[in-house]
């Protein structure tokens, strides 16, 4: 069934009886060509592109809970390709280009909205770094503009230009960045994959791998053994938990990141703003809520919740940047578990176990990566060679000294 405005009108006039399940709930088959562990954005996108790009449709996506319930369902919805390093920027630029055509591609309105992302700078050194980054973006085919204070003021006159502790000295504007209705991404990929024959199996937890003679033959699950030619882990914050069942230790720690939404407001913020002198970034959803976040809680955690000091830190940043937010109320907070890697960059790679693949280490940048992650992971699974924009995302890069460290923080995951 194709979704369209006409279809909506037709259904409205006929009592909405024609809408079918967005995806089926099949029982798992005995075996598949590919079993993807994790029904989040990346897992569903991988399944979608396996089917669409590589015509591999005998695929199952196995989800412990409900699809889209991990980080794709608990992020701050931002998409962007404002990366600095060669290992990253082409990948994220591919992702942004995929976002730009995604809705027509999978026939689901995920409200991709290129509202622009403005990263504020507050010091000369930050401006120098922004210039280097902006140039790297442009050299990789992305877009960037360097604004001075007046340029920022023209966009957002209500920021604190009067008595800021850290005055705004400009910003790096990435106009093609923006926001996407996050849940819809999971549902759109799920629907697209399901229509092409992929089985999406919810409430099915992987309890172990069947590995014989260095080859992975399938997964043990709460719904029984499911055989597979290739098993692809794609579980973000649960990466260490899952891969531990295959005997692997990863260069990853799991950390909690809180995010917040305010009560609905008439339009305040058109684009996304990142405060460069505190921990605060913010956009406004189409529903009117200000969606904002800041830094990690900093300690290892698998609890999808955080603590008060970070809430205060983030909202202090909000007030420092936008003093007019004083009476705006935060409605809800939540936490997601971030697979923080040792250099802040992800992995899309084979493992040392034949037939077992790994995708993870997305830190808190996983959402924007969803299309390219699925695209490249599908490419790796289908061809056994890394996609050209994901060649750096190898598990052995630390052994070789080839870190991709955007923030320059070294092997301390919570600082990325």
């Amino acid at each position, binding site marked *: 069934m194709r*979704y*369209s405005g006409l*279809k*909506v*009108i037709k259904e*409205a006039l006929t009592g*909405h009886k024609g809408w079918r399940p*967005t995806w*089926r709930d099949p029982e798992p088959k005995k075996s598949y060509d590919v079993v993807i562990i994790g029904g989040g954005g990346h897992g569903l996108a991988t399944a979608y592109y396996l089917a669409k790009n590589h015509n591999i449709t005998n695929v199952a996506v196995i989800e412990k809970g*409900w699809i*889209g*319930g991990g980080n794709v369902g608990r992020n701050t919805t931002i998409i962007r390709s404002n990366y600095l390093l*060669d290992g990253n*920027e082409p990948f994220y630029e591919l992702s942004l280009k995929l976002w730009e055509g995604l*809705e027509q591609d999978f026939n689901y*309105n995920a409200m991709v*909205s290129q*509202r622009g992302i403005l990263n504020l700078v507050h010091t000369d050194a930050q401006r*120098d*770094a922004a*210039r*280097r*980054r902006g*140039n790297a973006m*442009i050299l990789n085919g992305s877009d960037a*503009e360097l604004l001075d204070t007046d340029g920022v003021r023209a966009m957002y006159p209500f920021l604190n230009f009067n008595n800021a*502790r*850290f005055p705004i000295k400009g910003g790096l504007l990435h106009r093609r960045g923006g926001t996407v209705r996050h849940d819809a991404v999971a549902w759109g990929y799920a629907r697209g994959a399901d229509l092409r024959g992929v089985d999406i199996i*919810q409430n099915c937890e992987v309890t172990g791998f069947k590995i014989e003679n260095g080859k992975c033959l399938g997964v043990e699950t709460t719904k029984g053994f499911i055989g597979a030619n290739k098993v692809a882990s794609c579980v973000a914050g649960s990466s260490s938990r899952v891969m531990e069942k295959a005997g692997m230790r990863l260069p990853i720690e799991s950390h909690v990141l809180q995010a917040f939404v305010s*009560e*609905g*407001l*008439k339009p305040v913020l058109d684009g996304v703003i990142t405060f460069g002198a*505190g921990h605060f970034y913010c956009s406004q959803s*189409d*529903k*009117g809520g200000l969606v904002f976040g800041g830094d990690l809680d900093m300690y290892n955690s698998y609890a999808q*919740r955080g603590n*008060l000091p970070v*809430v*205060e830190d983030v909202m*202090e940043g*909000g*007030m*420092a940047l936008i*003093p*007019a937010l*004083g*009476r705006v*109320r*935060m*409605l809800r*907070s939540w936490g997601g578990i971030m697979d923080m890697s040792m250099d802040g960059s992800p992995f899309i790679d084979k493992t040392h176990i034949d037939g077992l693949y790994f995708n993870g280490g997305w830190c808190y940048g996983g959402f924007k990566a969803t299309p390219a992650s699925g695209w490249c992971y599908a490419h790796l699974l289908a061809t056994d060679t890394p996609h050209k924009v994901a060649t750096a995302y190898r598990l052995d890069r630390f052994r*070789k*000294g080839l870190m991709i460290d955007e*923030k*320059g*923080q*070294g*092997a301390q995951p919570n600082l990325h």
Partner: protein
Amino acid sequence: MTDAVMNAGRVAFQADGGTGARKGVQVNRLDGGLIKGGKPLSFTFDGKRFKGFEGDTLASALLANGVRLMGRSFKYHRPRGPLTSGSEEPNALVELRSGGRQEPNTRATVAELYDGLEANSQNRWPSLQHDFMAINDRFSNFLTAGFYYKTFMWPAAFWEKLYEPIIRKAAGLGSISFEADPDAYDKGFLHCDLLVIGAGPTGLMAALTAGRAGAQVIIADEDFLLGGRLNAETFGIGDLTGAAWVEQAQAELAAMPNVRVMPRTTIIGAFDHGIYGAVERTADHVLAPEAGKPRQILWRIYSKRAMLAAGATERPIAFENNDRPGVMLAGAVRAYANRWAVTPDQTVAVFTNNDDGHRTAADLIAKGVKVTAVIDTRADAPAVEGAELFAGAQVIDTKGRLGLESVRLRLASGITRDVPCGALAVSGGWNPNVHLTCHQRGRPAWREDIAAFVPAGELPQNMVVAGAANGDFSTAAALRAGADGAVAALSELGIEAKAGDLPEAEDAPVNVTPFWYVKEGKGRAWLDQQNDVTVKDVKLAHQENFRSVEHLKRYTTLGMATDQGKTSNMGGLAIMAELAGKQIPEVGTTMFRPPYTPVSFGVMAGRSVGEEFRPTRKTPSHKWAEEQGAVFVEVGQWLRAQWFPQAGETHWRQSVDREVLQARNSVGVCDVTTLGKIDVQGKDAAEFLNKMYANAFAKLPVGKVRYGLMLREDGIAYDDGTAARFAEDHFVVTTTTANAVLVYRNMEFARQCLFPDMDVQLISTTEAWAQFAVAGPNARKLLQKVVDPEFDISNEAFPFMGCGEITVAGGCRARLFRISFSGELAYEIAVPTRYGDAMIRKLMEAGEEFGAVPYGTEALGVMRIEKGHAAGNELNGTTSALNLGMGRMVSKKKDCIGNVLSEREGMNQDDALKLVGFKPVDSSATVYAGAHLMNSDGEVSAATDQGYITSVAYSPVLKSSIGIGFLKNGDARKGEVIRAVNPLEGHETQVEVVSAHFVDPEGERLRG
């Protein structure tokens, strides 16, 4: 002024607080209540003037004045009135106050009335009565749950250009003024043995019990009146009315120094290990806070034990057109009548599935309100005195455009009947307020006998739940649970408390037969009134396989409005369970998350606003620099002088060039106190520094300083500085300004965790010494005038990289280091910080004959770039010693942090980046920090990228723009001409690769 306003004003002025007068002007004001004939207050709603009384909420006052219509819904812009009398309110949202204090989405049901209150309705245009956007309601059949996911995709560009702007404008609720909030906020910290959350009968009894036992108790309630439902009910406790018992309890608690009673305080979240967040509204009930006083305070409460006594929230029943103003929860109608002496209308009907609804009928009848019907879904409903009972009946539809006029019933017999009423009091049973029990990992459990979820699973550490929050709904049970709960909680702390004799109170059982929605009818029956989620939407979600509760919530937006579904989630779950053929507990619940009710940005920021967002660190010469008219710049938390403009200088470059030239030609002085200083002592101090620095320190002689580079364990450089050896067992280490805290932390880590038996003691002395760089050919001459004559600082006695303890200015102790960041003959001289102000004055006075200049961070930067010294832009966390041209400094002969991993192949490739200098071929051209480097010809692309420029300056010595940066294999490419490209700003400059040491590469000046 319009006639309407004048009339309203004139009528309202007749109010004198007497009961008779009340009725006269406030058409729905009743006798009695807890407003006690309080002070009359004047307020406006949508510009119209009204009167109410002290003790009213905005909602109760508007209802008293016959106003039921208070808002519009989110999607369909349906007219709405209050559903509730509390913080769970979904409908009656207003913009309170104006200007910088404008506060969108304020629930009229909890906005305390004050004289001069100004409120406006929101999300409507042009007026609340005539809202153009209500057109959406006509198209509701097209605007079902998730419709937007299926359309607006063609043509692609139209989403951002057309559809989305329209949606965004229509969405949202209230608006902000865009003015800065003028009010102050505060934060604080409280400690207690027992935190009691909620001051109803349970909480009060618990606080009394614990308070009498001498425990440290905090009792908080979101309401401005303590008592909870006791204020809303007519039954008594012992010989007293509920309200009188509350007053007595409150008086007793107030007299206990160990008890802190906090009304107007919402516990917003249960955090780890007994920490609770609380927001106290200290000035939301007045026109404006007193000067300096906060509007709200965020308290962080450290509790040893906590009792959740937060009561319960009534839930509605869904039926067609159940959202008209006047359709309210039965408990709320009762509360308006008993507490605020208000009825929403003179004729009221009741619709219930449980006995509690009957209380509303009885109380209204006792107050003289006409109850036109009691509709009970149960065939065996108890009898009602004074009103007609329809047992086994249902409400199937309602009428009334901007307010309820009548309801249509389907009687047990099957016939329909219309009943006139201006308000319908609905009760579908009560849900315990389990929210805080779920803020960690608790998942509530279903209790069949009360048809509701009660707390279960892993509660927050050391929390007990009591009373209605735990499903014990009677007053007697609440008192018992409060007392027993307090005794039990305190006994775990070793505090003996006694429950004692409890007063007698009503102990009615809960008689409820679950009834979630009326199945009859083709129209819409609302679940989430704010977000306009109807029973049909839940059915559609089910049909489309959004069946998990989380999918249901996200697809339909059920429970995502400002009330977070406090009155609506349960109904949605029950309907989904029915559709899925499951039991309610099998469907589960969505996650309750902080905050319990929405919390302002202002209070979460507290005092950390504006210039006080973060502390400011000032240098010892700050005051003097201010006097010189210095321009300051933020460097981390420090404020440093950036340059010192002199009369006639119109551009910063003029000042900076002058400062650089004067320092290079004569002498300049710069406050360098901000560099971190760590005092390292102990028998193993030298060996310890050997571990910390990549280069060797063990053999540094006493009286000497050495430059040191610190690596992270991954082999990347992260800080550099100097270590001065004052004794065999005593060093003073400097760090960069930015990394002072980090270096100290890392050193403590090494000391305590890696080398625990080394005899090393560390302490920061950054702030204890005011330190000044004195640089330039005349530096020694200047210093010789300041340093006391017994200290010989000649080149021979005090050579380059020397250090020593001296005195200055006739006996003031000081430290002198002969180190140079500028490349000139230079010293750094330190005195105790209190003398720093005097010292800069002294130095400038002594330097007068040499034309000494103060120089700021800009000139400092220019001189270090001219010398090719790495700083923050080069130590960017991705560069190794090799990249920095200091590869040979990394000792292979000793263990130090970072040396093993610095040898990895990827960090030692042939074309590794190397730090070099760049000079534009055309000396009038400018180079930019952040420009990328490309070969002299060929493509400009990421694939051909050769490196990047990190720092640039205009060198007044070379009369050219210069830069340093990282170039692939750079040290072998000196003399090559390449391109520095800056497509971001449209520049491309031909630059020559040169040594990063632009000035005095042999270092003769600094040794002179």
